[in-house]
């Protein structure tokens, strides 16, 4: 995606999107935002607010949301699943597969939208998958079963699978979920690399710090399903976080890192704070 500012349309543009399951009240309403190539938008919100539903809508996996979704200037509703898969890849939350595929067999699945029905990936696809694993420093895992690798390695395999699909837009549902602290940071670095390569990324997270560290845009769905978005530095403040998560959270500016950190104000000492309580 060679994006010359002002000449091409954003990689993802969402306009007045609303969705409801059946006749229930809408999960979210009138959602509008855009993500440019080489940018990240981190979607924050409490459990059950509809973050995953929004991603599934954009991925074209849910039926008839109202509103418009444009991917690289194309109307998503007009695209077939295969065409859509050439423009957009999706990393859902980690799921267990019942059969243990090797890592390289999993990675090579990313070429599915480029293969006609009846074709299997051949030598060139496997070599490309191997190359991607090498680039992510996990080449040694190629012939290991997916059920025998750690969560962090699984995440790297997923990234390789997405790179195999090679799309301008990447959706990620809680990519740092189930990862230890070090692997969460490693994951953020990988995401940062993807942004550097010009991919547009829309991801969900439960950790506001991740949005701050990636320093892109942030979007918020609150408990009522109301949607707002903007640059991290403009949108995120202590008041908003408290409203969002129902706990007092302070934002401290760290000069040496040139960014803020979130600090929950609760102090857990094990003693009751209120003697007569």
């Amino acid at each position, binding site marked *: 995606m060679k994006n010359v500012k002002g000449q091409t349309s954003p990689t993802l543009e969402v306009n007045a999107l609303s969705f409801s399951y059946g006749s229930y009240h809408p999960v979210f309403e009138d959602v509008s935002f855009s993500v440019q190539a080489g940018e990240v938008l981190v979607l924050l919100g409490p459990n059950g607010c509809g973050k995953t539903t929004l991603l599934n809508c954009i991925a074209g996996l849910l039926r008839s949301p109202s509103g418009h979704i444009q991917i690289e200037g194309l109307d998503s509703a007009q695209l077939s699943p295969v065409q859509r898969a050439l423009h957009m890849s999706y990393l859902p939350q980690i799921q267990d597969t019942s059969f243990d595929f090797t890592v390289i*067999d999993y990675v090579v699945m990313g070429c*599915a939208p480029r293969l006609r029905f009846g074709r299997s990936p051949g030598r060139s696809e496997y070599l490309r998958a191997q190359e991607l694993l090498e680039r992510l420093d996990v080449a040694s895992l190629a012939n290991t079963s997916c059920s025998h690798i750690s969560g962090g390695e699984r995440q790297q395999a997923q990234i390789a699978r997405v790179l195999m699909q090679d799309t301008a837009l990447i959706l990620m549902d809680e990519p740092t979920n189930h990862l230890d602290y070090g692997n969460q940071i490693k994951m953020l670095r990988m995401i940062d690399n993807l942004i550097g390569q010009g991919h547009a990324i829309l991801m969900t997270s439960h950790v506001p710090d991740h949005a701050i560290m990636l320093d892109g845009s942030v979007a918020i769905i609150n408990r009522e399903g109301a949607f707002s978005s903007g640059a991290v530095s403009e949108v995120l403040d202590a008041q908003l976080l408290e409203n969002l998560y129902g706990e007092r959270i302070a934002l401290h500016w760290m000069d040496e890192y040139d960014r803020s950190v979130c600090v929950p104000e609760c102090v857990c000492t094990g003693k009751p704070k209120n003697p007569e309580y």
Partner: protein
Amino acid sequence: MKDALVSRRYARNILTLALAVLGVLSILCAFSLGRFMVPLDQVFRILLAQAIPLEQTWTDQMAVVVLVIRLPRVICAFLVGCALSLSGAVYQGVFKNPLVSPDLLGVSSGACVGASLAILAHLSGLFIQISAFTVGIAAVLLSVGISRLFKQRTPMTLVLSGIIVGGLFSAILSLCQYVANVYEQLPAIIFWTLGSLATANKVDVWTLLPIVVVFTAILMLMRWRLNLLSLGNEEAGSLGIHVGRLRGFAIVCSTALTASAVCISGTVGWIGLIVPHLGRLLIGSDNTHLLPASCLLGGTFLVIVDTLARNLTSSEIPLSILTGIMGTVLFVLIIINRRMQI
């Protein structure tokens, strides 16, 4: 690292080739073995003589035994084993459940009922087959219909409906057995439900062959795509896969395979469950290699089982008895092997 990649592919291709060779050998041995033994070299010459003119070194009796009596039966055994194992492997992949076998949606219990009804009505062999096929397919349609009643449509609801329909049809089967004539019909029903290829003839080969070839070919074409079904629905969908359509198509193809196999041989248990696991153990979970391997393994397995069924005792042993015993032994071996890997 790239060498490892290439050598892995070679290893699997060589393994598949070895299975094919094993299949051919088992078929040749099956031609040779029986109450009337035909030496292997004569079997080879008799078969070759069909294509090129050869000097006759065999007796006419040998030729009749090999070409008229054993050839249709052995071919049917291979095709039935092939069809059941392939559809078992596909079902397990589609339902993401390693404990599933091709009769999951009630095709076998339906076929049993169909055959029993035909036997009760004193119908001939061909009508027994037609009735078994029809009721088998009807049972699957009923399963699918019931699964549509569930609010959520997941593979799990289909599994549940299959169990319900299977229960219904085994009840009807019991009823058929209860009302059957004890001296003629009941043994016929029981013999049918245990599976046998004793009556396999040329007509069976020519009805089974095209069906097996066509549906196997279709499943082979989509075999890599079936891998994607074991991903989550979202991930598979985001790869441009129409998950529901692909799953449905795979189920239709493998059900047709099972139904046509079962109506020739009667129900043969265990093959559809055991052989795919054996294949997975040998060649891995990748359907690109697993499906061809399952076909070859299943065909070979049933040819061996059927040869044993003919030769072990003076009267024929029903196939399900042998597959049940051999299947259990194989399964235990697989589990022990798995434990050693972990």
